[in-house]
């Protein structure tokens, strides 16, 4: 049962949260988290990081992970 930190950014925060601690079942993937939160329903997922590294949606959560979810953002 990994305990993880979920961080949301930009429009994904609206009506949700900035940061939350959550506990998931063993074997939960980042895809499951994205679906549970429903963040990608309106704006597609732009960037997914776990522990400050880009990962794909099939990443399996581990104890102490920090998951960061961004819609497409840019600037410069």
């Amino acid at each position: 049962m990994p305990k993880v930190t979920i961080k949301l950014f930009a429009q994904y925060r609206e009506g949700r949260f900035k940061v939350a601690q959550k506990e998931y079942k063993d074997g939960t993937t980042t895809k499951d988290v994205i679906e549970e939160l429903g963040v990608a329903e309106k704006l597609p997922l732009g960037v997914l990081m776990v522990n400050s590294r880009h990962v794909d949606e099939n990443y399996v959560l581990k104890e102490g992970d920090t998951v960061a979810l961004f819609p497409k953002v840019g600037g410069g």
Partner: protein
Amino acid sequence: MADKIYRVNLNDMSYKIEDVPQEWAGLGGRALTSTIVAKEVDPECHPLGPNNKMVFAPGLLSGTTAANSGRNSLGAKSPLTGGIKESNVGGTSAGIFAKLGVKALIIEGIPKDDSTFYHIHVTKEHIEINPVPELVGKDNYAVLDAMMEKYNKKVAVMSIGRPGEMKMLVSNVSVKDPKGKLRSHGRGGLGAVMGSKKIKCITVDAQNYKEVSYADKEKFKEANKIFTKALQENPISGEGLPAFGTNVLVNIINEAGGLPSRNFRSGNSENAEAICGETMAEKIKERGGSTTHGCHAGCVIQCSQTYNDEEGKYLTSGFEYEMIWAFGANLGINDLDQIAKIDALMDDLGLDAIEMGCTLALAVDAKILEYGDGKEAYRLLKDELANGTPIGRILGSGTGTLGKIYGLVRVPVVKNQAIPAYEPRAIKGQGITYVTTPMGADHTAGYAVATNILNSGGYIDPLKKEGQIELSRNLQIASAAVDSTGMCIFVAFPALDDPKCLPALIDMINARFGTNLTADDVTNLGKKILKTEREFNLKAGLTNADDRIPEFMKYEPLPPHNVVWDFTNEEIDSFWNF
């Protein structure tokens, strides 16, 4: 009517309006400024002496109805880098130059009577050069107000503040934007070049000529529709940038461990949440500002904003990621309002926000101020720098010079230009752009952050070397071409991911000029610009040894990923194999 080259010779206060030479006909923006500087400026000249020239050129599509086409280029030999410089800006100047038929404005020489400063006024038929002793010692907004009044608001205005008059290397050339605020030709110390020529301001007539010509107006309209749609439908240019501005980047760059903090000591900043785009957008909404504002007419992205204080009174606009990073993360100020006050002051004085923020962050190592002391940073700029006191002059000389004066080793510059808001150790493709671009450390020259961090144009792991040189090369070639069209660099986001975007841009160029350019022609133009600029730098005395990252980044691991800069010299130099 055909466009012309407008040439001012300050040595004898004369001007000429010349036909455009055939070889310059297909050029605009950066392609034209770099071509003219390379042809006419002695690469060995002193950048503040009589043989340097300032070259202004609107982009190929500036002045047209094309969305986001209002960027104006300024080229010269840079007193900061000692190499060629092109710095482009939004505001109103590009469109006004283009509508007047000014293909380029070249300013050469230095006035014999250098006891005062001068005002250059450009109209279709002639150019006036007049002394303006009443504006000497004034900053940008005072100059802007005087010119708005004189011409009943119907002019483009380019000006320098006191730092430019003093030929400080941190000074920029400021340009009026559509709301009467300021944008800047920010980098490379071009305000010092204008100061060396004793030019306080340049105005361009906007009253009498309001149309550009099109070879095929219908085709142009059609292509512009497709192009505009691509900008509006892209999630970055259509959603993220209007909602949060460029400052949306603070959180993602911080999360990726690439946000340079406390003079490049960490890739994370504890201030990120306090200064990020999300926090800024909340404050703007609470205080009745505006999250959307275009830096030039015809912008459909509207990434800029108006930022008010707690009482709802205007504080600043054009409050950008680079500036907020420089003062918030790198100098450690955790108060957005304080950063906004500094931003407004720097607009008025005409200072390069990146160079200035990096210089002040380095000044902490020199024990001149402390991290997070926004009040002292403000005072140093307002009381010391703007008045030209000895410490003000030192800070006004930029990051590299400050480092030399105080014997510092951790000096974040490439070609003496301060490194912008992306850590080269943790975003390696961006590092390749910093070291190889002829401009000195410049993020816009080839924005590899897009593909290293933002998943635009695919994904290349930011911490690994593989693929970075090719990525940076392709982006630099494309950016050089885009910088010649007058287009805002943010068209890169749809261009990287939407196959309809670039062909529509090329169709617009063809429909305006009656040409038959292909995508290959545009790529070849980009390559030619880069090679022209590189050749100028080599003749100016720069070598491959200048295409290097500061040494401390090779031996000092950067948290949180604990990465160093690990490219070999041979790998870096292979950038130029094209």
